C-alpha cells in the first residue's frame, strides 16, 4: 500500500545525486578513471554526431553517383569521406535509405533505441520514448503528422525497425531552391530528425 506513495519528492535531484555517488564509488574502486566518462562525452561532441550525417547527405545531394554508392554500400561510401570512427560503436554496419517523390522512410527501434552513432550521434528523447516506439509501426502517418510532416496518401511509407545488426539512416529529399548552395551550406540544413524521417528539409525561399 505505502509503496505506491513512497517516492522521492525531487526525482531529478535524487537521480543526480545517485549517479554522482555511483561514478565516485566506481572511480574510487578502480572501475572507472575520473577522466573516463568525459572521454565518452567528448567523443559525441567532436567525433560522432549528426554533423557527419549532414555532410554525407549534402554530398549525396550534390553527387548522384555518390548517392548511388551510399545506398548500395553505406560503409564504403562513408569511408570515402575520411571521417574518423565511422565504423565504430553502433555503426559497425549501417545502411542508408533515400526519400523520394514516391517513398518516405521512417527509422525506428521498437525493442530499444538502436541508432547509427557515428553518423548521427546519440538518439534524441523522442526516438527513445515508448509512445513513438509503439505508434511508429502501427500508424506512422499519424505520428509523422504530429511531427509536422504530412505524407500524401499516394506516397509509400517505409518503416525500418532496427532489430539486428543494421543501423539505418535516411537521405532526405533535397530542398527546393537550394541549387546555389555548396556542400557545407547544404549540410547546415540537415537535422537529425530529417535523417530519421520525422522531419523534411524545408524548401528555401525562391531566389
Amino acid at each position, binding site marked *: 500500500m505505502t509503496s505506491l506513495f513512497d517516492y522521492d519528492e525531487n*526525482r*531529478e*535531484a*535524487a537521480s*543526480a*545525486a*545517485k549517479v*554522482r*555517488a*555511483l*561514478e565516485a*564509488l566506481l572511480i*574510487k574502486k*578502480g*572501475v572507472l*578513471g*575520473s577522466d*573516463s*566518462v568525459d*572521454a*565518452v*562525452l567528448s567523443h559525441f561532441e567532436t*567525433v*560522432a554526431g549528426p554533423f557527419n550525417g549532414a555532410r554525407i547527405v549534402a554530398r549525396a545531394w550534390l553527387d548522384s553517383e555518390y548517392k548511388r554508392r551510399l545506398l548500395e554500400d553505406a560503409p564504403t561510401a562513408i569511408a570515402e569521406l575520411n571521417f*574518423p*570512427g565511422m565504423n565504430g*560503436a553502433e555503426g*559497425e*554496419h549501417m545502411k542508408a535509405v533515400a526519400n523520394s517523390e514516391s517513398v518516405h522512410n521512417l527509422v525506428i527501434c*521498437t*525493442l530499444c533505441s538502436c541508432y547509427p552513432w557515428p553518423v548521427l550521434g546519440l*538518439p*534524441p*528523447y*523522442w526516438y527513445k*520514448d*515508448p*509512445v*513513438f516506439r*509503439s*505508434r*511508429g*509501426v*502501427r*500508424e506512422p*502517418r*499519424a505520428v509523422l503528422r504530429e*511531427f509536422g510532416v504530412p505524407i500524401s*496518401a499516394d506516397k*509509400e*511509407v*517505409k*518503416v*525500418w*525497425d*532496427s*532489430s*539486428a545488426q*543494421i543501423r539505418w539512416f535516411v537521405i532526405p529529399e533535397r530542398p527546393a531552391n537550394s541549387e546555389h548552395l555548396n556542400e557545407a551550406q547544404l549540410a547546415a540544413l540537415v537535422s537529425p*530528425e530529417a535523417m530519421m524521417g520525422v522531419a523534411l528539409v524545408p524548401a528555401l525561399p525562391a531566389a
Partner: protein
Amino acid sequence: MKLQHYLGGLENLGPVNLEKKVFVAEWEKRIFGIHTVMMAESTHLAYALPKYPIAQVPTTFKETWTWASLRTGAESMQPFEYFKYRYYEKWLMGISQFFVDRGYVAAEELVTWTEHYRANPGAPLPEQPNPVLKEQVVRYLHRGDSGLRAPVTPVRFVVGDTVYVADPEAADHTRLPGFLRNKKGTVTEVYPGAYEYFVSTGPDGLNGPQHVYGVSFDASDIWGADKSEPHTVIYADLFDAYLQPAHEIHAKDIS
C-alpha cells in the same frame, strides 16, 4: 508475453513526445558515459571483432557488459514499473543494481554517498585519471564491436521468399519485435556473412552465428486491413531463428 517485447502496436497512448534533446537532465550524461565505459572495458572484447588488448587495461572491472546486459535488465523490469521511468532513469537503476549485485559497491555505501552528494551537489568526484583506460574507451568508440562472423549454417531463404515469423517462448531477452510474431513477410535482403548476438537467448533462439534477413511486411498483414494505414510497409532485420519457411506453416495447417 512480456510487455516490453510488444511495444510496437500498443494503442491508446496519446501524442508522441517531440522532445529533441538527447539528455533532458545533465545527470543523464553521466550514466550514459558510465555504461559506455563499461562496454569499452568489457572482458568479451578480448575475443571480439576487432580484438582489444583488454587484459592490458588497468581496471578492476572483470565482467562482460554489452547492450544485451542493459536490454535484458530493462526487459526484466515489472512492465508497469518500466513505463513509470524515463529512459536514463532505468539505466541508472539497472547499472547501479548490477554493481551492487556483483559486489563492486555495497548497497549501504551507495546510499551514504548519494546522501553526501544530495546534500552537497557541487562536491567534486575523486581525482584519479586512468589514461590507459581512456585510450581503450576512445579505441572502442572508434572501432566498435561487430557481430559479423563466418556462417556455420547454409542460407535458408533467398530474396522474394515468403516467410512466417516464429513465435518462440518468451525469454529473458529477445531481438524479435513482438508485433511481428506469426506474421507473414517477404525476404527483401540476405545479409552477407552471419551475425552473432552478444549472448544466447536460450529458448528464444539466438545462439552462435546466424544469417540475418531483411524482411518486409505489408502493414495490413500485421494489423489487419481496417486497422492499418494504406500504402505502408514495415521492414525488420531478423535473425534466422526467428523465421520459418511458408511451406512448413502450410503443411502444419493441413495436418
